[in-house]
């Protein structure tokens, strides 16, 4: 029997498939597949519409870019991913995904997946940094709770609050850039009394040097292009939808959570204005981009909702602490109590939500790895013949 050559790679089934932009399976499930594709589009649209509406309609549900909202976002991504795999893989001849135009589009998606993995890791580091902020805030909360409020307490709270705000801003601006690490390194060697400033810099762990969240997202979105007219019924479309969803979610995560090098993140992603399933994503993106612009102008932190609140409340409490004179008026104390409660509430949300969020990101990581491995396997089996090196 002759050795199989490249031309014989596809089974005879693949050879007689109709090679327009439709991909047909031999069982004649063509209609079923079209329906699946349409459902996929609809579901994606619905999911993101949910996320969009939850931010405007119901004040008691999670605000845009809050921890709770981000967790929902990741859930939706996992659902999209699962449906995507079902649409592309199930019931089809695996070799179909190695044919044009998928033979080019699929590796591009897989490349985006790899980039997403790094974003996941960067965001996880960012969440650790936020947990640090939570701890500093907790000091302030604990300090300002006891009554009557004395000098000592306020000094204690002030110290913590100043650290908090400084760290927050630092995390956001430089966010673990190499500059920060170097200072912290020299910090270790220096003896003597280290001031407040130096303490701040050693707090966050960093990604690889030269890694940039903004650049990463930009690279992920640079070749994102909607399939042309005739392709809309083939597998190119679900691939495009998945890619878009992935890029959007990663962009959102990087916008919300301080991670390395976010300058330039606010630029718009190339989303298709005319496709219905993309509308909610576009809506969300516009909202978030607006917030981002505001943040850049004001030099404030964010965009994680809890972080922004924390900064606001922190500043208010600092004002209080700066102007504190013992004994303070009851009115003032009552105001402060409200703020302290707010801060305590934020800390609680972080305490309850940060770790689950990290776990979810880890799950997304795993899922992406698994999917990539599966696709790579099919591609290698079908399309690529590796010549062993001697």
């Amino acid at each position: 029997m002759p050795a199989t050559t490249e031309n014989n790679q596809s089974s005879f089934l693949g050879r007689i498939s109709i090679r327009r932009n439709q991909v047909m399976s031999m069982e004649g499930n063509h209609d079923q597949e079209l329906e699946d594709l349409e459902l996929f589009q609809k579901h994606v649209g619905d999911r993101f519409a949910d996320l969009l509406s939850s931010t405007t309609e119901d004040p008691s549900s999670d605000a845009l870019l809050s921890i709770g909202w981000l967790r929902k976002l990741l859930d939706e991504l996992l659902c999209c991913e699962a449906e995507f795999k079902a649409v592309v893989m199930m019931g089809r001849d695996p070799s179909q995904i190695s044919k044009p135009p998928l033979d080019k589009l699929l590796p591009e998606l897989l490349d985006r997946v790899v980039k997403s993995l790094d974003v996941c890791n960067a965001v996880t580091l960012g969440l650790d940094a936020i947990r640090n902020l939570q701890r500093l805030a907790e000091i302030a909360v604990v300090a300002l709770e006891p009554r009557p409020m004395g000098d000592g307490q306020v000094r204690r709270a002030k110290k913590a609050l100043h650290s908090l705000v400084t760290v927050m801003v630092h995390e956001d601006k430089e966010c673990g850039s190499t500059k920060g690490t170097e200072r912290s390194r020299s910090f270790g060697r220096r003896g003597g009394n280290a001031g407040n400033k130096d303490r701040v810099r050693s707090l966050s762990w960093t990604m690889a040097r030269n890694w940039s969240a903004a650049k990463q997202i930009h690279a992920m979105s640079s070749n994102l292009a909607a399939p042309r007219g005739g392709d809309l019924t083939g597998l190119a479309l679900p691939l495009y939808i998945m890619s878009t969803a992935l890029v959007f979610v990663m962009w959102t995560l990087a916008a919300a959570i301080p991670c390395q090098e976010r300058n330039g993140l606010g630029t718009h992603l190339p989303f298709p204005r005319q496709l219905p399933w993309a509308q909610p994503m576009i809506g969300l993106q516009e909202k978030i981009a607006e917030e981002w612009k505001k943040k850049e102008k004001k030099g404030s932190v964010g965009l994680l909702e809890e972080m922004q609140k924390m900064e606001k409340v922190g500043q208010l409490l600092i004002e209080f602490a700066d102007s504190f004179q013992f004994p303070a008026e009851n009115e003032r104390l009552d105001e402060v109590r409200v703020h302290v409660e707010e801060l305590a509430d934020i800390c609680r949300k972080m305490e309850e939500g940060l770790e689950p969020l990290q776990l979810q990101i880890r799950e997304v990581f795993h899922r992406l790895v698994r999917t990539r491995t599966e696709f790579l396997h099919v591609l290698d089996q079908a399309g690529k013949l590796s010549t062993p090196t001697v």
Partner: protein
Amino acid sequence: MSSPENLPLETAQKIILRWDSTASEEAREKMIFDHTTNRDEIDLYLQAVDEIQRSISSASLSDSHHSNPSSTIQIAMARLEDEFRNILISNTNSIDTPLDEDSSFSSSIKRHQDFKNDEDDNEDDDDQNDDKLLRFDSTCSVATTATSSSYRSTSSIREIDLIPTEAVSDLRCIADRMISSGYLRECIQVYGSVRKSAVDLNFKKLGVEKLSIGDVQRLDWEQLETKIRRWIRAAKVCVRTLFASEKRLCEQIFEGIGSSIDDACFMETVKGPAIQLFNFAEAISISRRSPEKLFKILDLHDALMDLIPDVDVVFDSKSSESIRVQAAEILSRLAEAARGILSEFENAVLKEPSKVPVPGGTIHPLTRYVMNYISLISDYKQTLYELIVSKPSTGSYDPSNPDTDFDELEGKPPLAIHLIWIIVILQFNLDGKSKHYKDASLSHLFIMNNVHYIVQKVRGSPELREMIGDDYLRKLTGKFRQAATSYQRATWVRVLYCLRDEGLHGSGGFSSGVSKSALRERFKAFNAMFEEVHRTQAVWLIPDSQLREELRISISEKLLPAYRSFLGRFRSHIESGRHPENYIKYSVEDLEDAVLDFFEGIPVSQHTRRRSQ
């Protein structure tokens, strides 16, 4: 340390206020806990703090907020926080010498341990202080002189003292007071921020690079192999010494002072580097699968497997679960990767598409590659026996693939079945390649050479032989012998056909005369064919000398007697005619010599072959 009477509250407060670093220049410049200071100063301060704490808990408040104990305690706590930080910083051992093969943590450990042993022998109260200082020095300055121990011997958990004992006990005193005053969080903050830098520094010195997953995917595999090797060495030191020592330090300072504070501090300091460490292994475990990666991935897998029990010990708390989980996940991914790569390899062998026939019918590079590969696999059989648990997938959706009945291989471990399968598909592929030779004889020779090579390789490796089994080995041997037979048939049947009896005599049978013209044709045909075969097949190659010899002998055994007998019977007829030399070109000895040229892989020039009667 004699404990004096309790200090009066006012005295205590004065002491605290004297050391308020927000209040005076002097307070800022000096440190209380300074190893050159008199311990009395330290004891006094601590006493003062205790007194303030006592007064708070007995709830006696005074009117003026200046002497309000809760205000004073804050000043004390702020001070203690600074002191704590300072002690940590000035006693942090940084590893000054770059870590290479010779100097290492373990060499400093060795000195420390040696020293410790000595110390145990001279247990003497008077000497204790001196010993403490000495120990402080010896662990502070890391050994630059090489000892024989290298990193590779970091085979079990070995903590070192990151901070000298005296400093530790001071830190403990401070932590105790901070925590009992409700300043736990500040204490953890300060500890975390200083130790983080120290760990980061040491971590960098171990040479663990920070690479993103994208970086790892982009790098050359050869570069990655080097990094993997380095990682394996560094990871052992990290887990067994660096992290373990940090953990012990936390325990030394915080144990018993509060509930799982030592855990919190430990994770605070170590989580980042731990994650960074495992991220590299993770990036490797998800890299694209290709056959050349198998063995380094197995190395990594084995190293990690060896390390995980210690990871579980060092990261044993609830808060460090994620690290343990990640390590286990990576291990299982590496195992999957190994399995996947094996499967990719099998696929690649089956489909290796090169059509260019190897000149001379010799061993195909694919054969060498595959046999070397599976030899290496047999070297790694310990690990692979564990990892490879299922039979090879035979690509059932492709109808053109070879068929193998795995039933007869029942009872063999899956790895062995894989190896046999690999040899099966190698042969399948080679069979296909053999068809590209125009000359059928060469096809057979090619198969013979390659299958023989396979057999030799298997025979040459006891592990391989054990796994492949003698049954299959016999089959392979049969195959190359059969190829040899096929070759002989393909080449020599027609040559020897020239030397047959039939058709040379007239219709009258043996007794009638020999047709001289037919005879002459026969000789000419034989000569031409032989010359052609000789010229062609001298260039063919049988690399194995024994096989070459055997085949030549086999040819000679058929050729020479036939020619001798032919000559014997019919030479007189030729010699009685004109120009016998045109027909009887060769003597038997000539042929015998000519056969020695076969399969040398060297072309023969025609002149040298002509000898005469």
